[in-house]
């Protein structure tokens, strides 16, 4: 389809394992965002890309979290040494411009760390 695609939709892993979450944005959208959403809360900003570069990574909680967008399209969020507190829905969004706030979201990847 033409929307933002995220895989996997669900991921269950054990504490200490490494996880990768993938986001395929809408074609032509240069801005890409990663958010984290816990139950009963709004989305929490993690990082955003303008093209291939991370324009703002101030929301990444610690150095276990890393994201890449090597060709300016698909992005991968990488979490090392997962902890139970990392359990959340990870949302990806893309937009055509930076300044209007109109983001197009994927359905999210639900991560459960046992």
């Amino acid at each position, binding site marked *: 389809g033409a*929307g933002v695609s995220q895989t996997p939709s669900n991921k269950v892993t054990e504490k200490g394992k490494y996880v990768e979450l993938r986001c395929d944005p809408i074609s032509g959208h240069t801005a890409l965002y990663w958010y984290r959403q816990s139950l009963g809360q*709004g989305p929490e900003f993690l990082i955003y890309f303008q093209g291939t570069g991370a324009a*703002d990574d101030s929301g990444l909680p610690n150095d276990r979290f890393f994201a890449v967008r090597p060709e300016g399209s698909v992005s991968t969020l990488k979490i090392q040494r997962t902890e139970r507190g990392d359990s959340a829905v990870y949302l990806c969004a893309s937009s055509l411009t930076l300044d*209007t*706030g109109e983001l197009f979201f994927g*359905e999210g990847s639900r991560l459960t760390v046992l």
Partner: protein
Amino acid sequence: AQSVTQLDSQVPVFEEAPVELRCNYSSSVSVYLFWYVQYPNQGLQLLLKYLSGSTLVKGINGFEAEFNKSQTSFHLRKPSVHISDTAEYFCAVTGADSNYQLIWGAGTKLIIKP
């Protein structure tokens, strides 16, 4: 720093009744304001936005919101709700205070009673 407060975590309302979902924000500078909706098992989608101009903004599905600068509010309204409006609604703000990143409220679940 900017913040967004959605005063009600849940709002139950009878079908065909009017509804208002409240949103207040804090910011010292000009802002852009948004309401996003998340239907069950779907991604977030933009409902409406205020960038400038008329303070009454109309969105999809019969929703509207009014920007009130003096009260720093952006309440969402619909004169007659339908069962299909059952969803979680998020208010968000962006501007210079947040380096143009979206700051999100915690969300309000709209529960339609038949």
